[in-house]
């Protein structure tokens, strides 16, 4: 670990966020992302996973949302109110939910958009598009094709490759599994974990598929109705009844069924 | 502020159907009504009546009309001036060629003709949305301007394109002075406002609002979207048509196509944007605001004896309205009505909210 930098690359303290000035989407969310780790953010639809990521990357501002209280500290400095483009230059890059590739542009052009707009030179993690093609050989064969011609999995690769070319220190991934076949999902997660290990990239991934996400992460947080309701080492989480019941599809003990955990998760039923 | 409003819910069905829920408010409305009918015409001079109040009331009808289709049903329309022209020319043709028909009925028949035009040009709204629809109503605007400037049949083949309106009487009273005109317009405005308010409280209004807020959801709930949209266009155009007829017959006393140009369409759009989209009262507030602003601006330049010629004043006015519209769209999209609502809330809890 480099000296002089805090151990936590990112920490959120009591962050609340609203949409349209009034719709509360996050309530007192606190979480920390240690340098070099891969963190999973679990939770059902509407629990605030996407909002949490967009709060960090401040893409929230494009959705008419804003942070109402709390602090977000990145690399020891508060980043509240910085423009999304500025945050990308500082190394916070998000892969949006649903991939969101530039469908009418070719694979090459998709990657070039990111490469062209990244000015920082101090933390380059990939040298250029060729390195991305080395990661994802199937993209290399189709580099002059329009992205709309590519399959869902390949589009996800383009989205991740594009994000890497923005030279992130902290990569935010929103539901990389969305709409992909189970086999592809684990492949994508293996790739992501691989990026985390080989490039030393810190990753925060929001995911509904808890079993895959936990399998490949160091640490997990659980979001419910806009608040963090649980968190811990992956091994602990895999053993916790709440996660087992709500996310892994395992029936809880009878005793647990009457417990408090269930009331917090009755959105599932 | 004046009386207690907390925990006063309607206790019977007929209570909940009232337009004005609280009896104190009803008393205020009654006093205001009497003031408008008795005091205003007594104290207001001829100038205030004929140059401010009458055009204000007439354009309020048009603003309500546009608000119905744009604020409630969510269908953009740039053709208000055109619909007003249809109303005006139809009334003129009827009044001059079939004098047996009472003149007020002519106004409403003019509105009916405008409603037909509204249905015809609302048809594209079944296939088109947002801008496309705005363009198609713009088409109607330009078509109407052309039609009423080229086809002299509409103004009885007079040599001049601007014809004067013959004197007319209502219920045996000849409408000549500003006071008679004022009462006539007041009566029509009252009827049409009441109708609009009630219509928007009924299933018709709720249907329109459902379509405005989410067309697909509305369709899935079993609302016939095409029928409701055409209905909105028809009723809206009816209001605009009546307003157009009154504009010529009562206010201008002449009929010429230039009084129904695209400028008036914009003026009325500004009224509802500034007053408040989707509120009937907002139409009145917006109309008053848009009409009074130039008067105030003029008065200010005169009072300060600024060395500005009239051309520059009108340019300034244009800039001013542009800035206002941008401001309201960006900062206060629900218009002055929303501002008033906020003010009211503050006043109600005053002085407990001081410092908050």
């Amino acid at each position: 670990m480099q000296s002089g930098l805090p151990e936590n690359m990112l920490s959120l303290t009591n962050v609340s966020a609203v949409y349209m000035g009034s719709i509360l989407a996050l309530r007192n969310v606190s979480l920390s992302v240690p340098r070099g780790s891969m963190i999973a953010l679990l939770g059902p639809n509407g629990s605030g996973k996407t909002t949490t990521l967009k709060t960090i990357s401040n893409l929230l501002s494009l959705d008419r949302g804003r942070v109402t209280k709390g602090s977000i500290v990145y690399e020891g400095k508060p980043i509240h109110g910085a423009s999304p483009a500025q945050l990308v230059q500082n190394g916070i890059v998000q892969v949006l939910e649903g991939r969101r590739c530039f469908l009418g542009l070719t694979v090459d052009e998709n990657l070039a958009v990111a490469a062209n707009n990244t000015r920082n030179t101090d933390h380059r993690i990939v040298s250029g598009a060729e390195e991305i093609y080395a990661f994802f050989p199937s993209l290399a064969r189709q580099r002059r094709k329009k992205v709309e011609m590519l399959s869902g999995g390949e589009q996800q690769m383009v989205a991740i490759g594009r994000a890497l070319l923005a030279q992130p220190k902290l990569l935010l991934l929103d539901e990389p599994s969305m709409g992909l076949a189970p086999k592809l999902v684990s492949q994508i997660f293996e790739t992501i974990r691989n990026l985390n290990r080989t490039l030393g990239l810190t990753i925060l991934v929001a995911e509904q598929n808890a079993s895959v996400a936990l399998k490949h992460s160091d640490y997990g947080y659980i979001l419910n109705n806009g608040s963090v309701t649980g968190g811990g080492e992956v091994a602990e989480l895999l053993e916790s009844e709440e996660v087992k019941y709500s996310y892994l599809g395992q029936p809880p003990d009878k005793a647990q069924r009457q417990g408090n955990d269930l009331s917090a998760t009755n959105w599932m039923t | 502020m004046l009386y207690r409003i907390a925990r006063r819910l309607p206790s019977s069905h007929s209570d909940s159907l009232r337009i004005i829920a609280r009896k104190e408010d009803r008393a205020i409305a009654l006093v205001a009504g009497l003031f408008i009918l008795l005091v205003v015409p007594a104290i207001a001079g001829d100038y205030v009546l004929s140059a401010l109040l009458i055009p204000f009331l007439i354009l309020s009808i048009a603003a309500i009309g546009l608000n119905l289709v744009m604020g409630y049903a969510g269908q953009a329309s740039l053709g208000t001036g055109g619909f007003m022209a249809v109303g005006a020319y139809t009334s003129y043709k009827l009044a001059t060629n079939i004098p047996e028909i009472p003149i007020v009925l002519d106004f409403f028949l003019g509105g009916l003709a405008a409603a037909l035009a509204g249905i015809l040009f609302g048809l594209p709204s079944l296939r088109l949305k947002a801008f496309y629809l705005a363009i198609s109503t713009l088409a109607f605007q330009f078509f109407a301007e052309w039609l009423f400037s080229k086809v002299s049949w509409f103004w009885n083949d007079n040599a001049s394109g601007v014809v004067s309106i013959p004197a007319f009487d209502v219920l045996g009273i000849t409408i000549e002075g500003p006071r008679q005109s004022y009462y006539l317009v007041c009566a029509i405005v009252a009827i049409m406002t009441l109708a609009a308010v009630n219509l928007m409280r009924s299933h018709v209004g709720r249907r329109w609002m459902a379509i405005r807020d989410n067309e697909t959801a509305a369709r899935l709930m079993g609302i016939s979207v095409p029928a409701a949209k055409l209905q909105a266009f028809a009723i809206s155009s009816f209001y605009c048509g009546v307003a157009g007829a009154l504009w010529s017959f009562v206010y201008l006393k002449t009929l010429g196509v230039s009084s129904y140009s695209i400028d008036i369409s914009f003026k009325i759009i500004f009224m509802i944007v500034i007053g408040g989209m989707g509120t009937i009262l907002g139409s009145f507030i917006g109309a008053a605001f848009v009409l009074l602003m130039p008067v105030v601006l003029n008065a200010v330049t005169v009072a300060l004896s600024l060395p500005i010629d009239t051309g520059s004043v009108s340019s300034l006015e244009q800039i001013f309205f542009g800035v206002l519209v941008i401001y309201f769209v960006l900062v206060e999209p629900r218009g002055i009505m929303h501002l008033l609502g906020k003010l009211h809330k503050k006043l109600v809890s005053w002085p407990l909210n001081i410092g908050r």
Partner: protein
Amino acid sequence: MFEDFQFFVEVLISGLLTGILYSLVAIGFVLIYKASNVFNFAQGAMVLFAATTLVGISGFGLNIWFSALLTIPVMALLAYLVEILILRRMVNSTPISMFMATIGLSFVLLGLTQLIWGSGVHLLEFGLPSGQFIVGDVFINQFDLSVAAICAILVAGLVIFFQHTKVGLSLRAVAEDHQAAVSVGVSLSKVWVIVWFIAGIVCLVTGMVWGAKLGVQPALNLIALKALPVIVLGGLTSIPGAIVGGLIIGASEKLFEVFLGSAFGGATESWVPYVVAILFLLVKPSGLFGSTQIGRI
């Protein structure tokens, strides 16, 4: 019969060439719509603003080309102001409120133009040829033909800019998906300023050409509004659509006016383009080259 046909061809050609003028405005329109999703009603006002500013500057006794050069920073300033005062506050607003805001903008621009430069008709002359020449038996106006050439150069320039420069690529990315573009470091503000600036330049060129043809006068605003049916016909997002749409609108309004208009009292150009566009839309709602948009529930 042959005479008739020859006349028809002449009318058609003059209509097509007028249509190119509409295409010019429409191109600026499409640029703005693609990049910032704003249906810019103020396009006509921008044309008038650019042309009047140019004439006003040359009124100080400057060469016309030099004045045009000086107008360019004015258009840049306009783009910058539009971005900081309107666009950045309107991210994700409904299309209709954006549209309303541009109506407001057009009022501001028209008012400013008249306030600063007055509302008279100014002549603008920058040396476009005005003679006619004959191909076969058909007269062709040299002026209109040079306009077509200017349009071609402009479009070629835009294509090169968008397809072969880094900034152009960023603009295309924003047009595809602005949030995704931001997520990889594209600055929306910068892109919007650039697009509105380019549209401003297109407006300047349009204003010069039209000013040379009709004189610079407030009525230009209304004529420029005909870009609306043009882009509606061509599809909101397509530059080829804007060009073909302009040609169709130009030709159809001229043909209608010459062969049918007199029976209706003439001056039908004020509404025929709109009706043509709407009738076309009823058949194909996305326009000639427009992408079919999938509405989200």
